């Protein structure tokens, strides 16, 4: 009962957030100066041609009417048409999003794989050198300009040592695996093609590593504090007093309880990485939503910008909802309210 009621309420709450998001984005993108139509029409366009283009995109109508028209389209899954290349935004998003999703998921996994052991080492050897090292590593990795780090890694690993490809998503000489999900790692696994899987893994390694650093820092600091807190609880002392081996105490008693807050933060981390993909994708020429946003913004093409903002907002809220629901699975003590 509790879970179902909670889910329905949370799903209903997404609607006002999305409406608000669309209004704010719409207002901002229409209030800023700059003439997208003139830019799209080209410098040689006559006043008549510009007028015609404005009519085609409904830009001569008052703003509230434009907004309602836009939202009517959104409800039908139509996010408008790009003014530059006349592609439907929804179709472009469907093409670019899997690449970004793949990158964000991979970097989240990497962040957890690196961050959790670092946090544990820091907590167990508190105030000794592993703690200091993990603190400096965490602080350095959030202080690193991601695009600069990406560039330096490209310079060392790709251009000098030739270990990894410089940029892009897949070897241009090899045909893509058959398109099922749009995520190359998943697609190549579905086609049972380990060679292509290896290629895709090589291409995603650098961008995913750079993207994961923020998560590494966040998880390290947060989890360390939580482990230290849980370690002082009575049941841990009890477990130790009963003579359980330290390994069992750490993994079964402490880590399980300390990880809850970290899982809660994964939703935030996911959203953060979606936003951060702008930089990573620019550096690594990764054909995802971030690169799409940069190109659209440079061309003052506001339909894609609106579409991307709405879509990313929707993904972000959905992921947060999933994370909130998953609490109950990890920690049965939590009641949905």
């Amino acid at each position, binding site marked *: 009962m509790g879970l179902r009621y909670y889910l329905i309420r949370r799903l209903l709450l997404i609607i006002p*957030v999305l409406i608000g998001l669309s209004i*704010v*984005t719409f207002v901002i993108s229409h209030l800023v100066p700059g003439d997208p139509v003139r830019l799209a029409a080209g410098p040689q366009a006559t006043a008549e041609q510009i007028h015609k283009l404005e009519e085609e995109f409904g830009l001569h109508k008052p703003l509230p009417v434009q907004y309602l028209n836009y939202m009517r389209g959104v409800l039908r899954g139509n996010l408008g048409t790009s003014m530059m290349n006349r592609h439907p935004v929804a179709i472009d998003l469907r093409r670019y999003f899997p690449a970004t999703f793949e990158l964000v998921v991979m970097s989240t996994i990497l962040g957890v794989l690196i961050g959790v052991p670092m946090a544990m080492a820091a907590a167990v050897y508190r105030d000794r050198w592993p703690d200091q090292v993990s603190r400096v590593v965490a602080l350095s990795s959030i202080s690193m*300009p991601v*695009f600069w780090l990406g560039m330096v890694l490209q310079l060392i690993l790709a251009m000098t040592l030739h270990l990894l490809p410089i940029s892009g998503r897949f070897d241009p000489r090899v045909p893509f695996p058959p398109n099922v999900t749009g995520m190359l790692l998943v697609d190549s696994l579905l086609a049972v093609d380990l060679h292509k899987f290896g290629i895709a893994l090589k291409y995603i390694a650098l961008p995913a590593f750079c993207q994961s650093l923020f998560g590494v820092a966040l998880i390290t600091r947060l989890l360390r504090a939580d482990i230290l807190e849980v370690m002082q609880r009575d049941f841990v002392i009890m477990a130790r007093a009963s003579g359980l081996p330290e390994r069992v105490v750490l993994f079964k008693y402490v880590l399980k309880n300390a990880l809850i807050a970290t899982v809660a933060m994964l939703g935030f981390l996911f959203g953060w990485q979606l936003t951060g993909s702008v930089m990573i994708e620019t550096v690594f020429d990764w054909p995802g939503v971030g690169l799409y946003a940069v190109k659209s*913004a440079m061309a003052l093409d506001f339909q894609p910008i609106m579409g991307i903002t709405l879509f990313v907002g929707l993904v972000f809220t959905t992921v947060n909802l999933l994370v909130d629901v998953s609490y109950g699975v990890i920690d049965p003590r939590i009641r949905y309210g």
Partner: protein
Amino acid sequence: MTVSVEARGWWGRWRAENQGLIDEWRRSFYRFQQSRLSIVGVAIIVFLLIVAFTGRYWVPYPDDSGFTTHVEIRLQGPTLENPFGTDEYGRDVFTRTVWATQTSLIAGTVIVLVGGLIGIILGGIAGYFGGLVNEVIMRLTDIMLTMPGIFLALAITAALGPSILHAMMALSITWWPGYCRLVQAQVLSIREEDYVEAARCIGASRPRIIFSHILPNCLSAIMVKASMDFGFAVLSLAALGFIGVGAQPPVPEWGAMISKGREFLPYHWSYSTFPGLAMFLTVFGFNVLGDGLRDIFDPRARR
């Protein structure tokens, strides 16, 4: 007793009245000294401030901060004359990196100040008045927090026209929600404290309660966030510069320099490596300081 206090002048009176506050500061300062990392952070920041504001008087080639061309030495590696090498116009990268420090520090300050002020005012209003006002402001904050900030900043800057001023404006506009939520939560809890109740009972006006009782007590949390945030503001500005909507040539700016230098990889590595290092040092300094401040002010993290 009264005589001796008056004999010490306004300074003595102030000290007598604020003994508690002074002791609190002393304790904070002591704890601050204890954490070695914070001292490192302060040292880095002081060094950067000195570099930023005296740099223009001692850099080897002050003219290179603008449009100058020395074709004969373009794109050279580090030498004694040009410790960080030269760029595609033969300008000294060291000069430009030092020059850009000021740009970044000022821009970061403006973004955090403007964004922080908007957030503090909105959050203070929402927390203190509650009810419908709170609902409206906090829902707007939620929406802004859902919004992918840099996408929006990117779009705004592109529309206003690429320039460092517009990038600063766009970032300031998208910067406030975090502060709003922080201050609102703080005000909500402080509002119920006894001393606020006492102030209300003796008839203190609302602005007085907000500005001299509630906000000063939020200050430590705001300071920690601002310090951590400052580095992030510098990074965001550089990110916009890197994409190409931030600082425009010939203004020296780290992000734009890194982006330009990337075109000349791998042969002219020094061009974009050193501005990146400078930026890393800056952001690292502020993050380390913020980490230290949090250890001092946040009792939960003080372990």
